[in-house]
């Protein structure tokens, strides 16, 4: 007797009210994951979730690096000389954006982007990923800025005193060291982002939670699809945490052996 037949049999028992509790559990599990090849939907959801995370992270890192560079360059201008006015204006804009983004809930931002700014868009998944990317950019900017500022100023001074210009000193001396310092925070940001893609479902963007909710609506049974989605997120996060640890150990090897 294969699974499909068992399922049919026990489902009938269930409708008659004669099923044991473990038979009921099996039927609910089967409905949530196997019937109509629903596991494919979860898989598709995971795929879209990963892509959305990657897109959001790419946008976040690009924006974050940009904003961090502007803010650091502004803060590190030599005192006693006239400040660069363009840098001042751009820096002020960056500061306002970061404040607004960090000061409002992500859920509200996703809703505004999906229902106000891009209300006529059809690709809500991308709108959601874009929102997450912009949001994460604000956090990444602060992470990178913290990393750049936390480095011993003596490193910058040593580079400059050798006659290297600002850009070369940043490129060869400051950024490689800062990168190592911010990698754990950046990894955490990625993990937060991965989980936060679930919010894309509130504006109808397709990802893992969207498909799970669809299945809930079809089967009128919330437990297995939602717990299943949670388990999938957990597994993904555990995989990425493990990868992050590996990468960090590898980077550490270069300066302590």
């Amino acid at each position: 007797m294969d699974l499909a037949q068992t399922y049919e049999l026990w489902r009938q028992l269930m409708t008659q009210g004669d099923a044991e509790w473990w038979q009921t559990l099996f039927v609910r599990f089967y409905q949530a994951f196997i019937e109509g090849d629903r596991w494919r939907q979860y898989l598709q959801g995971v795929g879209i979730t990963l892509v959305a995370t990657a897109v959001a992270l790419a946008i976040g890192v690009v924006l974050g690096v940009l904003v961090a560079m502007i803010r650091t360059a502004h803060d590190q201008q030599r005192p006693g000389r006239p400040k660069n006015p363009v840098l001042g204006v751009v820096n002020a804009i960056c500061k306002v954006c970061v404040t607004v983004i960090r000061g409002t809930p992500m859920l509200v931002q996703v809703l505004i982007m999906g229902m106000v700014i891009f209300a006529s868009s059809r690709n809500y998944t991308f709108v959601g990923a874009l929102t997450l990317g912009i949001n994460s950019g604000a956090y990444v900017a602060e992470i990178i800025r913290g990393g750049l500022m936390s480095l011993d100023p003596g490193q910058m001074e040593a580079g400059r005193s050798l006659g290297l210009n600002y850009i070369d000193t940043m490129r060869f001396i400051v950024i490689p060291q800062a990168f190592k310092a911010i990698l754990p925070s950046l990894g955490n940001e990625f993990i937060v982002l991965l989980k936060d893609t679930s919010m894309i479902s509130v504006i109808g963007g397709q990802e893992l939670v969207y498909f799970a909710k669809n299945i809930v609506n079809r089967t009128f049974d919330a437990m297995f699809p939602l717990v299943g989605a949670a388990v999938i997120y957990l597994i993904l996060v555990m995989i990425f945490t493990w990868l992050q640890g590996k990468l960090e150990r590898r980077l550490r090897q270069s300066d302590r052996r």
Partner: protein
Amino acid sequence: MIDVKHLSKSFGDNLVLDDISEHIAPGEKVVIIGPSGSGKSTFLRCLNLLETPTKGTITFDGMEITDPKADIDKIRQQMGMVFQHFNLFPNMTIRRNITLAPVRTKLMGQEEADDTATALLKRVGLEEKADAYPSQLSGGQKQRIAIVRALAMKPKVMLFDEPTSALDPEMVGAVLDVMKELANEGMTMVVVTHEMGSAREVGSRVLFMDGGHIMEQNTPQEFFDHPQNPRTQSFLSKVL
């Protein structure tokens, strides 16, 4: 070689250097001593514009470096600087620490820079450390590498900011030997130090600073044996 005119520097309301004028001739080894907070490190850092002077001018080799239009990177290439805390680049091997600046500033090709690094490392007895990382070295070794790194740019003047203050006493000797050798070769040097012994051995002139002023200056012999200023006398009686 270095001409300082009416140099003042303040951090906020705190006046650290007060109208200092001083001339440093080629080949001179000027040693600056003084109590903490006397402005001696700030004075040294002003010479290569790690601190921007509030007032006054500094001329180096005929170029006014305090001019906002001056190419500060070009000027710094000719002024080596050694720091109290070494400031080696921990993310690079010793060889790359030494060759990075000469190669990036197009002073030398990579090959020539590598040869220069090897020759300089041999001179300070650390040639076997070329492929090590800074974290594998002792303080004294790090400081000798830092001196070599500055020398690789073939500077006209070397600035030392308390080069032995962060070292174990037994490491100080090796670093001082390198500095003495450099002095004997005729390098122009400006050294801020707490080490009275090195002031005597390396210096051709000693400046005593206190409260942002140069209180007294003389040859090492005269300075230590017959200090004139009462402030100098009390300082020396405490440290000697």
